[in-house]
């Protein structure tokens, strides 16, 4: 098997919220957006061994292993106070691990009898397209795993050709649209949405868009014209694509973005009505 490795920030062996059925979810480290309301901001960056977390840890549970260029984490003394994550200047964490395709296959085999499939998520998982390709091929050729469905949870901010090798192996992609106007998108995520809009169109054409989600962020993407554009976009994809309107929750977001506020019931209803007027069947959560 390939020596290719990926940085894995976590694996959840039973999730009921990452696609249909009971699923194992594999979270990859590193993201190419920087959303203000990111609830897992420690999965955005990569560790550069600066040592800030090592100096901060109140239980001295972290150590730099310069030879192998990694942080050693002592699970026995760590109290999971997460101070290390809060102080990390790179939006990273000392907890992610390098794993091979084989390592991940072993983890899936452990729970294969209990799941409908796997979901890969992030960070931005499409930054690891070559690794995913190997992983998915391995799953699809494994006699005990080939029945599992494979879903990708992506931000869509990726060149179109990156999708091509993966689409034949997967069941679908769940994707967010953070804003329709490029300007608003840049405000919320730090980046333009050009590639994302193309990904949506492309995946829809290929019949691989499973779900399209919109996170309502008051004062940013909740004015009427923005909502109507989002509604238009949602209307442009197949009716079979699940659509979800998500209320941004400010619990667990970074301190510097604590000014973000959650939508009121009126604001949620206003958005809901606009989708309703466009005749879009949308799940609100």
């Amino acid at each position: 098997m390939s020596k290719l490795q990926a940085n894995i920030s976590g694996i959840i062996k039973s999730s009921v919220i990452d696609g249909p059925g009971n699923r194992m979810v594999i979270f990859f480290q590193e993201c190419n957006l920087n959303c203000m309301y990111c609830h897992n901001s420690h999965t955005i960056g990569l560790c550069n061994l600066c040592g800030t977390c090592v100096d901060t840890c109140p239980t001295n549970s972290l150590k730099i292993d310069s030879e192998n260029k990694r942080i050693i984490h002592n699970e026995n003394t760590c109290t999971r106070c997460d101070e290390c994550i809060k102080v990390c200047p790179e939006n990273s964490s000392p907890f992610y691990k390098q794993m091979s395709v084989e390592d991940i296959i072993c983890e899936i085999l452990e729970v294969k009898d209990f799941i409908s499939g796997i979901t890969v998520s992030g960070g931005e998982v499409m930054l690891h397209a070559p690794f995913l390709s190997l992983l998915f091929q391995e799953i699809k050729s494994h006699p005990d795993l080939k029945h599992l469905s494979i879903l990708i949870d992506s931000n869509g901010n990726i060149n179109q050709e990156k999708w091509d090798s993966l689409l034949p192996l997967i069941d679908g992609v769940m994707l967010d649209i953070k804003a329709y106007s490029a300007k608003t998108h840049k405000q919320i995520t730090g980046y333009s949405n050009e590639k994302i809009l193309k990904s949506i169109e492309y995946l829809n054409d290929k019949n691989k868009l499973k779900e399209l989600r919109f996170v309502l962020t008051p004062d940013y993407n909740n004015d009427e014209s923005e909502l109507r554009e989002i509604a238009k976009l949602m209307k442009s994809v197949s009716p079979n694509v699940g659509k979800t309107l998500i209320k941004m929750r400010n619990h667990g977001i970074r301190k510097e973005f604590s000014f973000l506020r959650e939508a009121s019931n009126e604001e949620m209803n206003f958005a809901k009505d606009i989708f309703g007027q466009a005749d879009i069947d949308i799940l609100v959560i």
Partner: protein
Amino acid sequence: MEEIKNRVLQVLTDGNLDYRQKKHHLAYIAESTQDYPDISKEATEALNEKIICDLFEGNAPYRPRYVLPDYAYALKNGVNYLELEPPTNFDEAINFLSILYVQVPSITGYSVYLGNIDTLLLDYVGDLSEDEIYKKMKLFWRFIDRTLPDAFVHINIGPEDNVIARVILRIERELKQVVPNLTLKYDPEITSDELLLEASKTVFEVAKPHIANHKMTAADFKGDYGVVSCYNSLPVGGGSHTLIRLNLKKITDLHSGDAESFISGTLKKYCKMTLDVIEARSKYLVESVKYYDTDFLAKEGIISLDNFSAMFGFYGLAECVNQLMKRSGKELIYGKDEEANQLAHLILEEMKKILDAREVPYCKGNNGKAFFHAQSGIDIDIEETAGARIPIGIEPDIYSHINTVAPHHHLFNGGISDIFHFDETVKRNPAAILDIIKGAFRKGMRMFTFNLSNGEFIRITGYLVRRSDLKEFREEGSRYGSALFAANSMDNANVDNRVSKRVISNEQVAGKY
């Protein structure tokens, strides 16, 4: 005599009991005037010390603990004793069963088994529409709850997907009654995913049905089986004379050596003693009371002594294992550490061997042997965890939980239960539950029971109560006999925190007077 008079007076004047409940308790007091069936002095002491527990079945068994009438046979042949002709249509069939149910004895005074109801009624559907069936079944369901107000009253559906099973699940969600308790027999090769999905959605509302691994359970029986009372699987047309349970925690307290000597000595000794009690009680019922010669159910072939056996139960496995581990200098815990889990399996396998080596009279229903049952607790169990369960509060993640308990489920032909909890979010994705149930059965689980956190229905191990009934009972008594046990269980076992112990039968109430 003075003591009896006082106990009777206490029942007569207890404002929390209704008329029928009083009669039940008075009968228990009357029964207690008889000598206990003939057992050794040592066994008597073990019973007094609650090392062996007869679940307050009473001194002089005059009816079997669990009776599973062959309702299909009764419907086909009619019942002379009740002057009932075989029914010819749906209304007559429901009327027939309603009359028969009230006549079926059990340890609680209410029938613990109402049949595999969808299969029984399908023959009578004729050209009735689903809506007509729904209306009739809804009235039937109300009759059952109001006439047999005891949560141990149990009905079965499945494994085939059919209109009656679906209508029942719909009615369950609408009526939200405690009674009847409900089991869906599930076989992935027979039962549709849609029916299992409907059942799961019903669990979200009313914490039932339980899901039984049909293929695995059916393989343990010569004929049909039913799931009755609290997770007891027994032969249809038969049942169990008695259920006697061994307190594994208490016998570990009495034992002074290591795990090896426990298994070869203490465990063996008390298993034998428990079987002696089972034998004495079974003989009393059959030979002295001559129940099976005199009751109309037996005389008319609706039950047969040949389909009966008796049940050997136990509880407190977790405490037993943890203590033996501690004595060997290891802080290893059942449910968490592999070595402790292995010891648990070893103890259970040894018990099963002891059971299988002992011929018990009048147990033809299980080839002359007692059924092995992981008993799911009653309200007086304070220090002991139900059956072979992992103690409340220290359950590991769901996969580890299943992987810990599934390897021993095959031993329990008399039934076993483990309860799993799911967060409310699963309501949005019930297919996830299907995955886990199917996985659990692939791993060898016999029965799968789950609850949602914070539901109105609380499962006190095997049976259900409503939160509101519990509150009401504490204030002014309840129509349901089982609410008292639940109240006691809540007091004794932190059931509020999760779900804990099952409470078993009305004799416990009577035992208080």
